[in-house]
């Protein structure tokens, strides 16, 4: 099945930072929401979001999981 990666961010309580807690593979955003909520149920999160990995644009690093989305990567290298 064709699934894309979604990164999962959550905040435990009011006033807490939104942190990256994991990832799910899903066919679309709707399923990603369900999978994230069911998978990362170890806390009673105040807030949880999913972000398609392709939407995360790295600012200062050229390696790691988001490297493929670097802006102007080709121009920079060429």
């Amino acid at each position, binding site marked *: *099945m064709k699934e894309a990666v979604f990164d999962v961010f959550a905040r435990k309580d009011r006033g807490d930072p939104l942190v990256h*807690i994991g990832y799910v*593979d899903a066919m679309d955003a709707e399923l990603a929401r369900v999978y994230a909520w*069911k*998978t990362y149920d*170890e806390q009673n999160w105040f807030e949880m979001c999913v972000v398609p990995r392709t939407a995360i644009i790295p600012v200062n690093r050229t*390696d*790691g999981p988001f490297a493929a989305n670097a802006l102007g990567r080709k121009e920079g290298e060429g």
Partner: protein
Amino acid sequence: MSMFTEEEIKKKVREGYMVESVEEMTEGYKKSLIVQLTVQADTELMSAPAYWRAAQHAPSTNTQVSAHAIIQDELAHANIAYRLLEDLGVSKEKLVYGREPHEFKHPYGFDQPLDNWAELVVANGFFDRAGITLLSDVYANTSYGPLKRALVKVDMEETFHLRHGEVWMRRLSKAGDHAREMLQRAVDWMFPMTLEWFGLPDDMKRHSGQLDYKLKGLTNDQLRQVWMQSTVPLCESLGLSAPAHYDEENKEFVLDYPFPCEYDAEAKHWDFEGGEISWNQVFERWKARGPMNEWYVESVRKSRGQVEAWLNGKAAA
């Protein structure tokens, strides 16, 4: 190409360097990490059908819920480990669906049938304790950042599984009579099964990439000791007999049976009388896989082709 040589990366991780991306890894580091994560993912995945099959013996709807909550956790842990593998360029699709059942890397213990509620709760008490022993060591020592972060959730939930196992072991042992006898029978085969799971003794293990690259901190024998430090007193406090005792003089747990020894999977019986066998014989037994191997693997993937066909607008083959 890595930015480091093998020697450089080993030195850096010893000094506390955290590896964050695949681009930083040497070939050796990546290979060791892939082996470690594959064993971790396969173990979590295969625990699910083993526990699922056993959960039918749950004595009430409440216990059904807690048994299935554990299964759900295990599947999520497997998924997280496979996701980490994908980020290293390994296909989850191929790992889960492209291998023969005997090619999975889970321990032999998860090839065995759990045939009643006592066996399920001892699995929670023993196997999940082994899981925590191994993974909390990884959490404390790993040089791979993404794995360390992923394990926060995993360790938290494994602790709940363990509590579930211990609470139920206590309850069955207190009930006495048949409940206690069933519990003791489960302990008799599952205690040695878990000890074997930790693998080759240190004096036979020539080299460990996982220690060199700081993917874990403790050796196999040390991990076995950690497991026994909790498990032997647990059994003693419940009046259950376990084939190991604490040696005051040497300050360590000692096994009261030949290790390793042969196992009769059909009878669920360890052949203590048959004496010590070689680790090569153990590896042969592991390689041949246990009685539930195919059933467990196929039960987590049998309907996949069917739904895929529907989604592509076809009737199922």
